[in-house]
């Protein structure tokens, strides 16, 4: 592992593999909400990691646009099997971070 790879700390949601529409929406919304970060998608079948380096933001607005329907972020729970990083959840925006 080189120095750059070691310094990367991937954070963000891990989505249930059987929930195809939410997986696609989180990837699309993640790209919109984190324009300066590379979104790394890891598909493991039963679950899919959607992550970025040290910071991952997800907004209600982008999720609604990606899904094309009303959506409150609390409704992501049935698909959110895990996450990397420390979560801060608000009504219209969830953020995962690692500081160190």
């Amino acid at each position, binding site marked *: 592992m080189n120095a750059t790879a070691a310094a990367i700390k991937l954070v963000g949601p891990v989505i*249930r593999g*059987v929930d195809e529409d939410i997986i696609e929406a989180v990837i699309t919304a993640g790209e919109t909400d984190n324009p300066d970060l590379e979104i790394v998608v890891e598909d493991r079948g039963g679950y899919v990691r959607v992550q970025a380096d040290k910071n991952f933001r997800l907004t209600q607005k982008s999720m609604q646009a990606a899904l094309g329907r009303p959506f409150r972020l609390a409704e992501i*729970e049935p698909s959110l099997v895990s996450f990397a990083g420390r979560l801060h959840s608000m009504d219209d925006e969830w953020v995962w971070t690692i*500081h160190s």
Partner: protein
Amino acid sequence: MPKLQRRDYYDTARDMNWAFSYVNEDEVFPEELSKSFGIKGDEWWGWDEPYKLTYREYVHNQAGKDDGIYSIRSTIARSNLYDNLDVGWKSAIKAHYGAIPVPEYFASIGEARMARFGRAAAWRNMATFGTLDECRHGQAQIYFPYCLLGKDPQFDWAHKAMHTNEWGVIAARSLFDDMFTANDAVSTAIQLTFTFETGFTNLQFLGMASDALHVGDIEFGALISSIQTDEARHSQQGEPTLRIMIQNGKKAEAQKLVDQMFWRSWKLFALLTGISMDYYTPLESRTMSFKEFMQDWICRQFMDQFKDLGMDLPWYWEKHFLPELDWVHHAYHLGVWFWRPTVWWNPDAGVSAAERDWLEQKYPGWNARFGKLWDVIADNVRAGRIGKTYPATLPIVCNCCHIPICSPSVGQAPRITSHNGRKLSFCCEVCEWVWKSQPERYDTHLSVVDRFLAGQIQPPNLEGALQYMGITPEVAGNDAEGYAWNRMASLAAE
């Protein structure tokens, strides 16, 4: 009626903290049920959950989750999905169903204790959801295998296992009692929700869900991944509790709680998940090795978060934990297969020529360390000496993890020690440290071997031991493939 945004009422609805005037704090939160670590009253009121949810949202989400899994169950109920599953995979889900569903109710007791004795209202609120979550997990994971009972009597152990003294059950119950049912609310938040649920449950519930979809077991994959969505939320009781302990100068105490339970969890998951992933899951369906799952979920994801909170790696990380990733579950697997009549599933040897190549690739040195032991077993099976592949005695069991003592090399002696004149055996330095760091929690508990020596198991032989463990003939484990792996190896050699 105007509808308020959640943020406008959330804090008002959850922050029901008040200073006591008619009773003492110690009467409301006795130390035995809610160890304060010397942190007083309103210091806990800053407890703030990272994952926020109202009761209304909770009920809506949970109803949807249950609709999802039970409709999958009823859709495939009359299909032949189960019959077509790989025999090794069937063993993996039987092991899961015996070890996990009833302990979900144990976890519900731990959550209920936090729902009453958690030291902040916001925490008690989240723990109330957690209590209900764990009931859901117990119900679903007993109902699903119940539906398979007509196909295979071993599924009876989804309900029966925890009510027996089977050796693996003693190991599991010892861990779960230590962490869930016999723990105080504050330690439970650090050990159950932080260490165990933020860390280890992902291995079994997501690692196995990942393999399940590749195997084609949609039912099991959907069930356990749905459960994990509850865990992802209620595990978040750990972080704010840890944060308050650190802020109040109790980092060392919190570190010790994590170090103790990280190790105990590791041992049991190496047994359950390690064997299931690297031997029982059919080769073509394995997404990653157990070690790779550990590196991704524990060494990276869990430890990134843990260190970000200002905590340190457990003291045994380099010397004991990392080396065990390479060998301990391989040794457990060999033991479980050898003592196969003592378990409620059919151990899959998982050592055909192709599987050995995979093991050697994922764990360089596997052939030299374990392959040669399987060679002896394979020779005996080929020569028709099946009797030689069965045990005549009981193994020595560790007084901390309650798993038969294994070592990285043949002939290495267990750690024999004593406490107040009682002889104790440990598998390693860390198990000895865990036990001796709190002997008052462990010193009246007898291992299955202690019970044997005390004359509790009669007649004192394997037959008596099986009877003591509740193993009946129709459930006793046998080789999952009827030794077909060996005939294949034999054909390949010719």
